[in-house]
């Protein structure tokens, strides 16, 4: 059995992390967190997270950048905004989650075979290129990249949706596809 140090040394923390997060829009109030735990208790999925929202807030403030960005927590959050509405310090916790998701994707440290970030990336690509989302194709792409075996268990649901006329094979798109592609290009050039 390998014995590992479970506690971080202070010098291993990223000191500027909390400030960098606080400068992002929606994250301005993170320093006002009083660690009351209202967010974690109102969160319907906190029991599945590696760090509860309260813990994550403490980690951001202390500078646990690596652990926060690599956490599953941010990808389990389903954006129900319960924490945001309940937080007595009025911290927009859902928006903090979004900011960390974007940082994790930019720095390439998101869990590569975890379906949520893969779905987000696939869907974003489809929308940028086609203008519309085709439910079937985006799910297929996600499963192929994460867990192809799951296709089998999804097949029966897919088939019944098809039979009920609720899922087609057609790829949806808008007429002016170039508009969104050019918009994307203009946005990239500006940053």
């Amino acid at each position, binding site marked *: 059995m390998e014995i590992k140090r479970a506690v971080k040394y202070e010098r291993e923390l990223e000191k500027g992390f909390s400030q960098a997060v606080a400068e992002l*829009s929606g994250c301005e109030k993170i320093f006002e967190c009083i660690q009351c735990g209202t967010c974690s208790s109102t969160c319907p999925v906190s029991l599945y997270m590696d760090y509860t929202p309260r813990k994550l807030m403490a980690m951001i403030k202390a500078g646990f950048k690596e652990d926060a960005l690599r956490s599953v927590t941010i990808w389990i959050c389903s*954006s129900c905004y319960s924490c*945001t509405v309940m937080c007595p310090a009025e911290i927009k916790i859902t928006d903090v989650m979004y900011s960390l998701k974007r940082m994790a994707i930019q720095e390439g440290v998101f869990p590569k075979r975890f379906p949520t970030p893969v779905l987000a990336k696939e*869907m*974003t690509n489809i*929308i940028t290129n086609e203008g519309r989302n085709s439910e079937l194709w985006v*799910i297929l792409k996600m499963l192929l990249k994460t867990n192809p075996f799951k296709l089998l268990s999804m097949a029966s*649901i897919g088939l019944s949706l098809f039979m*009920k*006329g609720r899922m087609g094979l057609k790829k949806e798109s808008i007429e002016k596809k170039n508009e969104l592609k050019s918009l994307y290009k203009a946005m990239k050039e500006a940053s």
Partner: protein
Amino acid sequence: MKEYGYYPGCSLKGSSKAYEDSLLEVFKVLNVKLKELDDWNCCGATAYFGVDKDMAIAVSGRNLAIAEKSGFKEIVAPCAGCYLTLKKSNQFLKENPSEKIKNAMGKVGLNYNGNVEVLHPLQLFFRDIDLTEVAKNVKIPLKGWKIASYYGCQIVRPYKDFDDPYDPQSLDLIMNALQAEAIDHPCKTRCCGGSLTGTVEDVGLRLVYILLKEIKKRGANAIVTACPLCHFNLDVYQKKISSKFGEKLDIPILHFTQVMGYAFGIDKKKLGFDSLMVSTSKILRA
């Protein structure tokens, strides 16, 4: 006749066609016109905001620009995800318009001056359509129906524009206007997991199971929804959940507009009941 811009979103053209069909039928009866936006694009949902915020705002911004150019002051988005995404982007564009987004949009000929409001159809019943108007059109009173209203999260959070974030009433009041009994329950805005049923199934299915079980325990014989994703999770995954948790749930899930349409006496074929996974034969008259 009141007219609004109509933003259907991807689900209402795909897996939740029944929501669109019933919505349009019901609004026809109520003398409300919904005019679909030209060449609208997907709102980007929660996915785009998790990848690229500026672009997410611009993607929604394109729809808002189209609406404004077409002369609409208000657009109606029946999907809770679209409603929130468009509303959130609208707020960014109105309150802190970033030069970067404005310039990029301008480069492709999209100009938005912040003159559009985003509404959810539920909201209209407490602003522009009187509930007595709804009651007047009832041909088949829903006597004996015990309906649980399930609002989901994004209609009432984080924006509390027209209802309470934890104990909303709008759907219940509409059901009462149709003479149905609205069952009180604590899960009205508890999250259904959204896309987690497809991504992290173990988490998603358990969230939906809790909702169905708690609602059933309180004696409801049907659940109404006002969001296509909530509806999808509760309806399509119900069979799987029943077998996974070893419990027969068997409770019909209806778009609220289907229930309204039925009470208004609209031909059932036009309301898409056949496309539902959980049979409605126990509650609908043959």
